Every structure is written in structure tokens, then in C-alpha cells.
């Protein structure tokens, strides 16, 4: 019953959900830490740990996946594309992986 486009929908939904849950944390850390530079620097030093690196990779992947998945939906809805939807969906995942990998490579 469920085909590739359904998984594209699930990825879009889950990535969106995780991003919106991450947003307040993101804002909070930035805002608090800018008043207290030492604390953010201490926090940013944490960013070298492998676990934190993995979480960062995940967030960049989520953002990229949501961006390209969203572009696919917008194209489908407003440009009336019908053909090769699956290819597009797969392509968007691939590109987001590539971007996240690039980020990780540069971060190390």
C-alpha cells in the first residue's frame, strides 16, 4: 500500500517535527549565551565531542531534507509536475545527505 512517495512524506513530516522542536533550544542557547560569552564558548567547546558532531550532522541533514522535500512538494503542487516524482524524492534525499556530509567533513 505504501510506496516511495509515502516515505518521502514521512521523512518530510518527521524532519519538520524535529526541527520545530529544536528551534526553541536553538534560540534559547543563542540568546542566553550571547549575554554570557564564556558559557557559550564552553558550550561550543562541547561541539568537538563525537556525539555532538553526530547531532549536528543530523540537524543539517534534517534541514536539508526538509528544504528539498518541500521544494519537491511546491513543484508538484504549483508546477503540476507529474512524471519522475520518485526520482525527485530520491534526489532530494541524496542532495541533503551530500550537504550534511560536506558539513561534517569541513567540521572535522
Amino acid at each position, binding site marked *: 500500500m505504501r510506496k516511495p512517495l509515502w516515505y518521502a512524506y514521512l521523512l518530510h513530516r518527521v524532519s519538520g517535527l524535529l526541527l520545530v522542536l529544536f528551534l526553541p533550544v536553538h534560540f534559547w542557547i543563542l540568546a542566553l549565551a550571547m549575554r554570557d560569552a564564556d558559557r557559550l564558548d564552553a558550550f561550543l567547546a562541547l561541539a568537538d565531542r563525537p556525539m555532538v558532531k553526530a547531532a549536528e550532522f543530523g540537524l543539517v541533514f534534517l534541514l536539508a531534507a526538509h528544504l528539498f522535500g518541500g521544494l519537491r512538494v511546491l513543484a508538484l*503542487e504549483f508546477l503540476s509536475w507529474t512524471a519522475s516524482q520518485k526520482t525527485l524524492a530520491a534526489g532530494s534525499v541524496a542532495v541533503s545527505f551530500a550537504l550534511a556530509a560536506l558539513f561534517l567533513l569541513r567540521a572535522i
Partner: protein
Amino acid sequence: MSEAAQELTVSVWRGDARAGAFQGFRVPRFDSQTVLDVVSWIQQNADPTLTYRFACRVGMCGSCAMMVNGVPRWTCRTHVSKVVEAGALTVAPLRNLPVIKDLAADMDPFFEKWAGSVHEPSASRDDEIAEIRPDDPKRAAASSAIECINCAVCHAACDTVAGNPDYLGPAALTRAWTLFNDTRHGGDVLEVVSGAGGCHNCHSMASCTANCPNELDPMSAIAGLKRATVRRVFRRD
């Protein structure tokens, strides 16, 4: 496939709107046997109280749809050989609809959602017949729902219907798209599909299009409705 010894293990859902459970049957295997043949065999040879629905047996009437191994299908045109998994079949009433008894789902909520998409003639028999060219793009788009047999397979496949019972669903919305493109339709279908349960709830996951036995494409029809309803807001046409 003609060895008489071959048998199918079939789990059939028995019960009503309140409660129920799967019941096991052993059904002999025949050549070119359809899932509807299997259900009929059980009703005729094993348990005459089994309730199910069919009429035409040739994929025209849309009354025989059931869940077969978890997938919504028109059972009269679904060959056992295509869907059997390790000699077993699970047959259940259509998803996303209330159950009346056994395999008969209550189609009322499905058809109620079509209420806003009923043809309203824009002309009477005394008027001149509107001229519509077969190659007109609007006429071509109006074909989207013409082959629909109202089987509710797409409705059962749609996870948005599952999560939101108010959602009109793929079949009614495809019908609305046909009416929108039908120049002879006098009603205003765009407002009907712009409410809280309207076309904007569709997430373009294409379970409808992937499962429609007549190879219709509700997802693209709904995308057309989204475009038309949004265009109206910005262009006021």
C-alpha cells in the same frame, strides 16, 4: 497450479461495528482464482453467515473492495496468485470506514463526502447544447474522475483520511476536480473544497494514485484543486 491438494490458508475478519476477530478457513486452490472467488467459496461451502458485498464481478460496480493482506484491492479483479503470501491470505473490511458486518464496510461516510460534488446543471434542456471540443484542455482534465467506480480503495489507502475523518478524501476531491473542469457544471466547487476538511489537507503522498485499480491519479487532481483555489484568492477569478 491445478493440483487439487493445494490449499489456501485464509484469515477472514468476522464481527460488526463493535467487536470482531479473524477466523481461519482452508480453501481449495483453483486456476485463475480471484480473492472474491475465495470469499464466495467460504460463504457457499464453509460458513453461509459470512457477509460481504459484490455485484458485477468484472470491475465495473466498485462494490467488492476489501483489504487483502493489508492492501486495499478490488477483490473481483485481484488474482490470488498475485497477492498470496506463503499460501496465506488475510481478508478484512476496507480501512477508514465503519464496519457493518464481517467484510461489508459502511460506505455512507464515503458517499456523504461527495455531497458537495454533485453535478448542478448550468443549462436546461431548452437551452442550446454547449459546444465542447474533445481536445480542449479543460475537457481533458475533466476526464480525471470519469472512470472512477467509487470503490473507495483510494479512500482506504489514504493516511490523511485515517488521521482526519473530516478530510474529504481522494475520490470525492477527484470528482470535484472533474466538476471544476466541466463547463456544464453550474455549482461552485472551489468553495466546497476549501474548508477545514478540503483539498489543502492532502500531503501528496500518492497512496491513492498508487492503489487505484483504474489507474486514476487523485493526487494530481487534488494538486489541480489546490492551484485553482489559491489562484482564485490572488486573481479573484
